[in-house]
């Protein structure tokens, strides 16, 4: 496993919804080695405030040497990042962490909530490229409303997946919580991959355990370095604390202590 620190040119900046941004970078070394579920640390600005890099899971990685990141503007770091211009050079470190294990051939279900959808598109693309029959797989996506969901849902559909949606306001798909849709899906899959808000994942993990379906989760935490040096990104595992940056961000759900994370 190898990671790189690279100055990467911002090639495209797309607003998928008023506060949801997709950035595409020229990042040849990172793109070639990245695996679904891995992340990059982005220095949003060259100054000292904000000081720390921000972690983003890789939303897309292409053979043409580009990677994309998808994020919502939620604070100072993402606000600055969202305002960077095409042509700007940003300092990226990656790919980092342990990604999804997707070696199996049985039907799978990808479940993304909000910006947790980001890494699942990269996974969906890689699964599709492995030559499997994606119409037997399921994709469940949830977010606040149609504006946020529609553009992303189309991209999963284009890969041949059966996509179901849930929105908080009912403007598209099921009105409510994404785990509500899981009942119908779990009997027909062997593996669940999920990323999203903590409560959503906790609910999904509980349902998977009952149905005896294996579940991999991608976690998000505050990180200072992303490389296993600062030891700041710990969460509670069943056998003590684990580090999200190195041992994750993708974990087998069974190793985590869900009640106390």
């Amino acid at each position, binding site marked *: 496993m*190898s*990671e*790189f*620190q690279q100055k990467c040119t911002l090639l495209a900046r797309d607003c998928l919804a008023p506060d949801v941004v997709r950035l595409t970078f020229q990042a040849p070394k990172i793109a070639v080695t990245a695996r679904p579920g891995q992340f990059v640390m982005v*220095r949003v600005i060259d100054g*000292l*405030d*904000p*000081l*720390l*890099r921000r972690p983003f899971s890789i939303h897309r990685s292409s053979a043409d040497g580009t990677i994309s990141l998808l994020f919502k503007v939620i604070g100072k770091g993402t606000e600055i990042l969202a305002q960077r211009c095409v042509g700007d050079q940003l*300092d990226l*470190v990656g790919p980092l962490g342990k990604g999804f294990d997707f070696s199996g051939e049985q039907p799978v279900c990808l479940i993304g909530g909000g910006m947790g959808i980001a890494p699942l598109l990269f996974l969906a693309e890689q699964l599709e490229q492995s030559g499997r029959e994606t119409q037997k797989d399921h994709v469940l996506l949830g977010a606040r409303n149609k504006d946020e969901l529609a553009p992303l849902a189309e991209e999963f559909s284009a890969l041949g997946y059966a996509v179901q949606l849930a929105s908080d306001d009912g403007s598209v798909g099921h009105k409510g919580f994404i785990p509500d849709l899981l009942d119908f899906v779990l009997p027909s899959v062997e593996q669940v991959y999920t990323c999203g808000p903590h409560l959503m994942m906790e609910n999904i993990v509980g349902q998977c355990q009952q149905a005896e379906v294996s579940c991999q989760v991608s976690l998000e*935490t*505050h*990180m*200072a*370095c992303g*490389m*296993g*040096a*600062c*030891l*700041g*990104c*710990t*969460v*509670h595992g069943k056998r*003590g*604390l684990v580090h999200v940056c190195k041992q994750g961000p993708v974990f087998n759900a069974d190793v985590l202590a869900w009640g106390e994370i």
Partner: protein
Amino acid sequence: MKEDYMNPAEEIVLCTGPDVRVQIGSLALRNPVMTASGTFGYAREFENLVDLERLGAIVVKGISLQPKPGNPPPRVVETACGMLNAIGLENVGVDRFIAGKMKYLRSLTTPVVVNILGDSVEEYGEIARRLDGVEGVAALEVNISCPNVKKGGVAFGTMPEMAARVTEAVREASGLPLIVKLSPNVTDIVLMAKAVEEAGADAVSLINTLIGMAIDPMSRKPRLANVIGGLSGPAIKPVALRMVWQVAQAVALPVIGIGGITTADDAVEFMLAGASAIQVGTANFYDPSAAENIVQGITGYLQQQGEDRLVDIIGTLKTGMA
């Protein structure tokens, strides 16, 4: 003829510009740029991003006698131009460090300084004893100042006589060059420096983090599970620089400057204030290439200033008005 023959080592020094070698007691460094404890793991974490052979020295994550799991999360929070951490000294313990981490560290030509910490004077001595004679350990840095563990650090680092006792215990247990890392959370850091100098330290490094805290006004909760933590990063640089300057004037020991160093200019400022070497800490997190860039930048500074040797600028701060 022999007299005219230039030996290859000399030639290399001449070809690569100013001489940036420094000396910390008996420890000779190829350049003054060290990585600060707790910000560089056990070095291997950075092997793909940093040319470890270009660093002056590597100071590894603090090691205790027994493994420590560290504090509950959240453990880090960003602040203006800095960060707070309350990691709680998580580490693998001295025996697993020697068995599991030293093999890789030994493979580097860069000197490895092992940072040690204990809950009692005896424990410091015992860790030092276990590290004495371990191949590849170039020096010890004694952490008497970590603010995170209620039972440990603080008392040693804030009382001159306790700091002296720890220093003596480590001195007795080990023949390795001994650096004592000082806490800034004291009324007079000069007193601490003098106490450890008298107790047999070979050098002092300063500063460790400043104790601070951060609060989330919406939840009305502290942002760190430990409530308080250590402040590091560029925000603390002026404080660090002041303390290095005061200590460098008061003791005869070499001083290693630490605190918010991100650029070569930062490093040079510490050396002008009297530091013989510097450590790069939090910058390793946001810019893994910082330490390497500083090495290069120092050379550039010396060339620009017309200086042949880095040691000639140490402590040359001009304080008079003339």
